[in-house]
């Protein structure tokens, strides 16, 4: 049951990434480019996403437990520490270099695989997508190993 629920959430999320344009690294980079000929479309993604999630979360706070688990796991930390800021800075550097963040990168693995079926020049070269995701997994594994979360 939980697998089905997560699968549906993945479907809705992936659909949102494609429809919004977040799955296209060029669109992401054009949004992040503050020096002209930019495409500000992605400024319109975060607002509705945060609004819907925020109103929904506020409603859920009044409920004792989620539908398929015993309790809500709301993050408890409030301290802004150097680990958070350093990690975010490193993440921002990686994101800005190519325009992939983890969600779109994983989705793009699926898109890249379709090049085999419908060869399209408009798709990211599979090697770049595959290389990015493989290196991302290595980075994640290393960060988990070097700096395990205390809580």
């Amino acid at each position, binding site marked *: 049951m939980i697998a089905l629920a997560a699968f549906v959430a993945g479907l809705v999320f992936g659909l949102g990434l494609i429809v919004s344009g977040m799955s296209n690294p060029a669109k992401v980079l054009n949004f992040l480019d503050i020096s002209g000929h930019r495409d500000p479309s992605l400024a319109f*993604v975060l607002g509705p996403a945060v609004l819907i*999630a925020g109103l929904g979360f506020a409603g859920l706070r009044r409920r004792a437990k989620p539908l398929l688990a015993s309790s809500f796991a709301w993050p408890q930390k409030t301290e802004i520490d150097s680990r958070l800021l350093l990690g975010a800075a490193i993440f921002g550097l990686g994101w800005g270099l190519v325009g992939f963040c983890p969600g779109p990168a994983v989705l793009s693995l699926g898109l890249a695989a379709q090049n085999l079926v419908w060869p399209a020049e408009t798709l990211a070269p599979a090697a770049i997508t595959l290389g990015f995701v493989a290196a991302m997994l290595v980075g994640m594994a290393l960060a988990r190993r070097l700096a395990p979360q205390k809580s």
Partner: protein
Amino acid sequence: MTDFTPLASAIGGSLIGLAALLFMDLDGRIMGVSGIVSRLLPPGEARQWTRDLAFVLGLFAVAFGAHALFGSVPGQTVTGNLPLALIAGFLTGFGAVLGSGCTSGHGVCGLARLSRRSFAATGMFMGVAMLTVFVMRHVVN
């Protein structure tokens, strides 16, 4: 150049918010892709692992259904080369886990919770990403 698509982006953003809400409503967890993907790496716990894998399979299903759904595979333009992609991928993964979240976990879910940490993280990664794009596009090239 990419087209300015405010309406499609807002609709897509709404779907992303809805997915985050669904994840919290059903399992009580933050929908953060870096967390979901990194938890698939060993060591893992069975129930979490199944849920996280199912989420990723949902993402793949959208990718594979995209041609049927939209009539064509959604366009992508990637600049750069393999070495750059490897460096960028490594930094993205390492930074996201070190900083406890990425665009979805901090950017969407964290801001939606009005989390101080997520506001700080989102400001930091957006700022650094903008600086990076500026340097790569207008200083290096």
